[in-house]
C-alpha cells in the first residue's frame, strides 16, 4: 500500500535536499519526491510544519537481552528507539551471557525479527566474555550479522590484546569500537577527578584514563590499518587526539553522547544523584565546550546515546555502588533540538549528518537517503512538540534518565522502517 508524506520539510544534505515537498513510499522504498504529489489510494500523513529526514541510527545502545530483561528487552528497547526517532539501534554485547559467539549474535538477530520494531544491528564482543584475554570468534559473529566488535563497558586493558583484535578483525573488515578506560588509572573512580571528586569525597576518574587509551588505540589503528570507532568521548584531550589523528588520515571515527554534551560535573552536588553517574563520568564545562566544537567541525562523526537502562533498586544504592549509565534513546533527539537546533548552533542538515549518515558511515551500514529508490527508513520530526521528561514519557522499561524533569522541545512523530510504521502520530506501532 502506498503512503504519501505531504508538505513536510524534507532535509537530506547527502542529496542536496532542503525543500517543502511530498514523498511517496511504496514497497519499503521511497518511490518519488516532488511537489503536489498524489497517490490513487493509500495513506496520507500530513507533515506540514514537520521535518522529514533519513532515519536516525543509534550506534550505542544496551538492550540488556539476554540476561537483564527486567531492565530492557529487544522488544522494549526497540520501541524506545522508535519513540525516540531511531530506525535502527546497534546493540552492545555486554549482556548475560556476553554476546561473543555467532550463535549469540544470531539469537539477537532472530529476537529482533520476532519482537523488534526497528532494526537491530548486533555488536559482538572483541574478546571472550569481554575479559580482554582471548580473541572472540569475530569471523563467526560477522558472518551472523555483527556489524562491529567491542568490549564496551570495559576497555581492553592490554595493548597487545587490542592489536590482536584489530589485526585479526581486518580479515573480516571488522570495525573495532573502543571503550577507552585505562583501569589502572580509573581504579574505583566514580566521578571526574577534580573539583567535584574532591568536594564530594568520591574516588576520581581522571580524564587521562580515557585519553591514554584513545591515543593508544589510534596508534594501533594506524599500525594495523583497522577501522577504529571511539565510543562516548568525554574529554577535550580525547577530542584533540582524534582531530590530530584525522588530520593524519587515521582510520578513526568517534561518537559523543547527549549527556556528555549537555551535562557536566557541576550538576553533581550534595544530593549524590546516582542518575548522574556515568561511564565515562560527566566532565568539566570546558570539556563540554570542546565536545561541542568537535561536533561542529566534524572531528566527532555522530551522536550516540549509550542508552543504559538500569533497575530502580540498583540506581537507588549509594553513589559509589550504583551502576553507571543513563537511558538515552528517548531523550537524544529532543535534547539535540532543544539545545542545538533551537538556539541555532546546528542546522537540520547537521542533525542528519550526526544522527543518520554519520552513524551509518562509521559502522558501514547500508546507506539511505531521501531519494527515489532508497530504502524507506525515514524519521518525521515535529520541532515544536513539547516533551516533559518523566517516567510517563518513557517507553523503555527503565527510567533512569539524567534528564528527568527537563522540559524539551521537539520529538519524532513518525518513524518508518523499510516503509512500515514503527512510530505513528507519536505512538509506537506494534
Amino acid at each position, binding site marked *: 500500500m502506498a503512503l504519501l508524506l505531504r508538505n513536510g520539510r524534507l532535509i537530506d544534505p547527502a542529496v542536496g535536499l532542503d525543500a517543502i515537498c511530498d514523498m511517496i513510499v511504496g514497497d519499503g522504498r521511497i518511490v518519488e519526491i516532488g511537489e503536489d504529489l498524489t497517490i490513487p489510494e493509500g495513506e496520507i500523513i500530513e507533515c506540514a510544519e514537520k521535518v522529514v529526514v533519513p532515519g536516525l541510527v543509534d550506534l550505542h545502545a544496551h538492550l540488556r537481552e539476554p540476561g537483564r530483561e527486567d531492565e530492557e528487552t529487544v522488544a522494549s528497547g526497540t520501541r524506545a528507539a522508535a519513540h525516540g526517532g531511531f530506525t535502527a539501534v546497534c546493540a552492545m554485547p555486554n549482556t548475560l551471557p556476553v554476546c561473543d559467539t555467532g550463535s549469540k549474535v544470531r539469537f539477537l538477530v532472530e529476537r529482533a525479527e520476532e519482537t523488534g520494531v526497528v532494526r537491530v544491528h548486533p555488536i559482538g564482543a572483541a574478546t571472550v566474555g569481554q575479559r580482554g584475554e582471548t580473541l572472540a570468534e569475530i569471523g563467526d559473529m560477522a558472518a551472523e550479522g555483527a556489524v562491529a566488535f567491542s568490549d564496551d563497558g570495559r576497555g581492553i586493558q592490554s595493548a597487545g590484546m587490542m592489536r590482536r583484535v584489530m589485526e585479526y578483525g581486518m580479515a573480516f573488515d571488522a570495525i573495532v569500537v573502543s571503550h577507552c578506560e585505562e583501569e589502572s588509572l580509573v581504579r574505583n573512580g566514580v566521578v571526574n*577527578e577534580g573539583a567535584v571528586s574532591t568536594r564530594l*569525597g568520591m574516588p576520581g576518574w581522571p580524564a587521562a584514563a580515557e585519553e591514554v587509551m584513545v591515543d593508544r588505540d589510534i596508534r594501533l589503528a594506524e599500525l594495523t590499518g583497522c577501522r577504529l570507532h571511539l565510543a562516548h568521548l568525554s574529554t577535550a584531550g580525547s577530542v584533540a587526539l582524534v582531530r590530530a589523528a584525522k588530520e593524519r588520515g587515521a582510520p578513526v571515527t568517534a561518537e559523543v553522547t547527549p549527556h556528555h554534551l549537555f551535562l557536566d560535573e557541576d550538576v553533581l552536588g550534595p544530593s*549524590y544523584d546516582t542518575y548522574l553517574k556515568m561511564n565515562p563520568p560527566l566532565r568539566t564545562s570546558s570539556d563540554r565546550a570542546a565536545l561541542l566544537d568537535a561536533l561542529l567541525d566534524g572531528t566527532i562523526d555522530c551522536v550516540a546515546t549509550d542508552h543504559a537502562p538500569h533497575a530502580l533498586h540498583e540506581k537507588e*544504592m*549509594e*553513589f*559509589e*555502588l550504583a551502576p553507571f549509565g543513563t537511558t538515552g534513546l528517548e531523550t537524544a533527539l529532543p535534547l539535540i533540538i532543544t539545545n542545538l537546533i533551537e538556539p541555532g548552533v546546528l542546522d537540520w542538515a547537521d542533525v542528519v549528518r550526526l544522527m543518520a549518515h554519520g552513524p551509518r558511515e562509521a559502522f558501514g551500514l547500508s546507506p539511505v537517503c531521501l531519494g527515489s529508490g532508497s530504502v524507506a527508513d525515514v524519521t518525521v520530526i515535529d520541532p515544536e512538540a513539547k516533551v516533559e521528561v518523566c517516567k510517563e514519557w518513557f517507553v523503555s522499561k527503565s527510567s533512569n534518565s539524567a534528564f528527568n524533569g527537563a522540559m524539551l522541545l521537539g520529538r519524532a512523530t513518525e518513524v518508518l522502517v523499510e516503509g512500515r510504521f514503527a512510530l505513528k502520530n507519536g505512538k509506537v506501532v506494534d
Partner: protein
Amino acid sequence: MTAISCRHIISMDDLSAEDITTILDTAESFKEVNERRIKKLPTLRGRTIINLFLEPSTRTRTSFEIAAKRLSADAINMTGSSSATVKGESLRDTAQTLSAMACDLIVVRHRYAGAPQVIVECMEAHVINGGDGLHQHPTQALLDLFTIRQHAGRLEGLTVGIVGDISHSRVAGSLVPALRKVGATPVLVAPPTLLPARPDILGAEVATSLDEVLPELDISYLLRVQTERAEDMPFPSLREYARFYGMNETRLAAAKPEMLVMHPGPMNRGVEISSAVADSPRAIVLDQVNAGVAVRMAVMYLLLGGEPHGAAA
C-alpha cells in the same frame, strides 16, 4: 527558634561560623559535666538516638554512645555492612525501617560518600554524619576545633598543618572547611600521591615538604597512615614516610615552641608520630578524645532543640 541553623549535620557546609561557636560554647558546659562524679544529665530523657555504624568503628561509635547516654537518651547501636549485596537490605530500607521505629536522631557512619544524604531523604529524624566514605566527618572537625581553642585560646589566625593521607581522609574533608570558617589557615602537607585532586577547592594551601612549612605551624595535625594496603602503596615504605613526614623530637625542636601536635587516632607510633612525641605534653591527642564526648553531646542536644549554652545549668 532552634539553637543552630540546620536540621542535620552532614558536612561542614551545613554550619555557619555562628553555629560552630554555639556548638563549641555548648560543648564547654558539657565538658564540665564529664568531670563530675555523676556524669549524667536528664536533658534528652525519652529521646531515641540510633548509632547506625555500617563501617567498623569502635572509637567514634563509643564516643557517640557515651554522649547520648550522658544526656539520658536511649542510645541504640546498630552495626552492619555497607554493601547492599552483602547485607541483603538497601540503605533506604534500613533508613525507612528505623524511621518506622520513630527514632529522634540517627548518627550514621558509612563506607561510601553521600550515604547520610540517603538517610535524610528516607526519614524524619535528625541526622549526624559520623563519617561517610572519603567525604566528611564533621563532629571530628568540631572536636578538633574545640581542642585547639581550649589549648591555644583562639582559632582565628592559627596555621594548621594537616599532614599525611589527605586523599583517603574524611577528617581533612571536614577539618579544612572548618578551619576556614573560623579564620584559621589549613596547610595540607603530603606527597602528591596522598593529596586530593583539587585541594584548592577545599580552601587549603599545599606543601610537599613538612620541614619547609614546619616553622610556620601552630598546630601539626597528623593523619593516620593506612598500613593495611601492602600492595598499591602510595609511598615506598613506612620508613621513608616517617623520615619525611613523621613527627619526631627533631622536628618538634625545629617547630614553634608552642606548636601542638594532634592526631585523630588511632596512632601508628613510629610512622606518622614517634612514641616520644605522642607521649609528650605537646601532644593533645587524648584531649581530642575527651572533647569528642562533650562536642557530640552538644550537637545532639542542639539538634534536638535545646537552648544554647545553658545545658549543664
